[in-house]
């Protein structure tokens, strides 16, 4: 029966090629634009640490003086060095990583070209396990290396390839600025959708390529780069002791109980600091997990979200338009349905046939939509925006586009089909 309906629908659509082409195009445009933007938003929000992102927490405390100007009731988005190291030292039982961003001049091994800049991260050895970073050679540095400020480094796969080609560089030396470190590990390709652990320099910036123990980086004066927010009269030459927030701490808490404990701990810490005279304000702490932190920071740029809304609005207009055109189309063929009803066809049959016809328009629109979405994503990729590389076609899109187009068009066809099958055959036939 379905095959017969599809055949009837195809025949009926072929009778009015212009109107059909237009309906298909309208559905295709709306669906194509919407799917392009939804895919982009989807990949931009993909879980950067699949599996345990909800166990990763970003603690914040309020260290600012009572007189410092604040934007809202939120504590600063980073920690001072003093608070970060205090928090870390008080809870040695927790898996945690403290970090600061940097940019270093990398000097290739002797006689192999010019120096270049690479993005660096100065952090704890726990970073790699905490964020499930895969390794190609070697591994992370140890907690002793952190404490001893050992001259070690982990590098990304791209940097290893650039500096050493195919050879395994573990154990070789990495020349950064005026210093030299021993490579202990090479990461395998690690491309979290968002550079979630430090959002201030832009969540979709290039990936970090050099990882150095924080103590080592500070001792050897490797240049830092990132957001530094200060109050009072800060001394930027001594960031470790001054009134600036510039470090990020990530901790892993495995269940709700641990989360509650840690939150209590942050409040207690704030109270202690206030009693000691370091903090001036009432305890104001936050403990967001990774998904909450990303949502709070609205990592997807406003422009992208605005364009997504625009695409969805466009789709809505296209759908309303489809409803109108179908209504007109089915009303025009009332005589045909009248005759069929008079010959004994039940309402159900006419309704089903018209729904199949709508579905067929939707499926064709979906096919057009895929082509448009592919073109749209290609267009996004060719833009110089820093998130452009994320815009790629995936299987989900290939399945979802025709499905969405068909379902939406069938929904759009329900009202016209219902109107068409409720006509009284006698009334229509009398008019003939």
């Amino acid at each position, binding site marked *: 029966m379905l095959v017969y309906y599809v055949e009837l629908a195809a025949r009926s659509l072929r009778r009015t090629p212009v*109107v059909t082409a*237009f309906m298909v195009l*309208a559905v295709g*445009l709306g669906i194509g*634009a919407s799917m392009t933007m939804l895919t982009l938003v989807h990949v931009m929000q993909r879980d950067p640490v699949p599996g345990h992102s909800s166990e990763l927490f970003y603690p914040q405390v309020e260290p600012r003086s009572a007189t410092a100007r604040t934007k809202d009731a939120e504590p600063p988005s980073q920690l001072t060095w003093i608070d970060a190291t205090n928090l870390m030292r008080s809870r040695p039982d927790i898996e945690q990583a403290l970090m600061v961003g940097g940019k270093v*001049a990398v000097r290739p091994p002797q006689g192999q070209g*010019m*120096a*270049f*800049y690479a993005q660096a991260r100065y952090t704890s050895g726990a970073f790699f396990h905490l964020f499930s970073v895969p390794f190609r050679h070697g591994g992370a540095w140890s907690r002793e290396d952190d404490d001893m400020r050992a001259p070690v480094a982990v590098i990304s796969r791209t940097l290893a390839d650039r500096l050493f080609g195919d050879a395994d560089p573990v154990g070789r030396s990495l020349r950064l*600025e*005026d210093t030299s470190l021993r490579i202990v590990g090479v990461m395998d390709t690690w491309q979290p959708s968002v550079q979630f652990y430090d959002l201030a320099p832009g969540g979709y910036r290039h990936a970090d390529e050099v990882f150095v123990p924080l103590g080592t980086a500070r001792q050897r004066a490797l240049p830092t780069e990132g957001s530094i927010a200060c109050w009072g009269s800060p001394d930027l030459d001594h960031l470790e002791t001054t009134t600036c927030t510039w470090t990020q701490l990530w901790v892993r808490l495995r269940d709700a109980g641990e989360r509650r404990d840690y939150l209590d701990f942050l409040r207690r810490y704030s109270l202690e600091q206030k009693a000691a005279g370091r903090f001036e304000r009432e305890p104001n702490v936050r403990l967001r997990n990774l998904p909450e932190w990303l949502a709070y920071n609205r990592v997807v740029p*406003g*422009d992208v*979200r*605005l*364009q997504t*809304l*625009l*695409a969805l*609005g*466009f789709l*809505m*207009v*296209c759908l*309303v*338009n489809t*409803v*109108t*055109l179908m*209504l*007109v189309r089915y*009303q*025009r063929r009332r005589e045909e349905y009248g005759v069929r009803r008079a010959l004994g066809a039940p309402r159900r049959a006419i309704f089903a046939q018209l729904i199949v016809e709508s579905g067929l328009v939707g499926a064709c629109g979906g096919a057009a939509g895929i082509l448009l979405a592919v073109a749209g994503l290609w267009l996004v990729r060719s*833009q*110089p*925006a820093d998130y452009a590389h994320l815009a790629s076609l995936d299987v989900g899109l290939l399945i979802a586009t025709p499905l969405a187009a068909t379902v939406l068009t069938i929904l759009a066809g329900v*009202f016209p089909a219902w*109107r068409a099958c409720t006509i009284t055959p006698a009334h229509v036939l009398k008019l003939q």
Partner: protein
Amino acid sequence: MNLPPMIAALRHHKAAVTLIALQVALTCAIVCNAIFLIASHAQRLHVSSGIEDDALVWARSSGLRRGDGADARARADLDALRHLPGVTAVAQVNTLPLMGNDWSADLGVTAGDAQPAVNGAALFLGTPSFLGTLGVRLVEGRDFHADEYVDYSPFDDTPAPPTAIVTRQLAAHLWPGQPALGQRVYIGAGSSQGALVVGVVADVARSAISGGTNDHDVLFLPVRTVAGPYALRVDPTHRDEVLRTLPAALIAQDADRIVTDREAFVDTVHRYFHDDRAMVWLLVTVVGSLLLVTALGILGLSSYWVHQRRRHIGVRRALGATRRSILTYFLAENMLVVGLGLAIGTCVAMWLNHWLGERYEVPRLPLSWLGIGALLLWAIGLVAVFGPARRAAAQPPMWVIRQ
């Protein structure tokens, strides 16, 4: 034209009228907001740098040596660049127009006044002959003298340079209605040591523009050294060659460095406006598609109505209605339906703008833009209905009688 019978006729088509009005309302809400966004982005695109774009090339280099001697090394670099073939002048500057790296300061016109006369004017600092290198056009006064270039940074307590040059717009903002030459400008609120204005130049865009009224508020200050890009004035025909040979010339001077960026200034300007241009094109495409879809929707519905009412039209024509009155009937009916949609649509447009404004920093939609959007849709509705209406009018009365 008699309205009541028209409205009575439309009552028989509640579903179709509602759908078309709904579609017009949605289109109107989106189109009004979109064309307003187009206009505000396009306004930024009109800003010109104010300097000679195609004769300028810039490069940024970071030395890897630590310690003293950075100034001497920068001067040596400038000498090396000056001798490249095709280069006519070089200077080091803190930033360039439309580079996206604004240095700004509050400016006062009286010594020690805590109340600035201009908030957040852009500071352009440059080494000897930087105005000529950029190609800034002097309209009054003179360029800086060689002995006026001093050690100065807006970020520490060094005294301001003895002289300064302002753009025409900044002069008008600082001293409205008065000549700027010979006045003193104070950098930073409460500053007591002013710089003497010795020249006024044609408007130059600041490094980051907002589309507001202070996009050309630029104060030029002469300095001996400044951290920032090297600017090279080149013969435009040699531009690509200079860009190609420039890193080698710098490396020959001192290899312990990284030449991080180099670009023809025309490309810098192009890049600066890229997002605006992309947004304008996107919005224009969406608005165009929306209007097309809506127009075709109206066309489809009116063709059907004309087809459906061919009997009535024939009777009316046979009873003496002119072609013209049939045509006007359909046009008026269309205006009524589209008007209904627009009435709803403008309200939705305002609500949408308010909603977007709270979330996406979209500026307030002026009422005049609602009018523009509504007129546009009304016109499109008329164009769409014109074909079917003419066909209706052209139908001979005999047709009905023959039926």
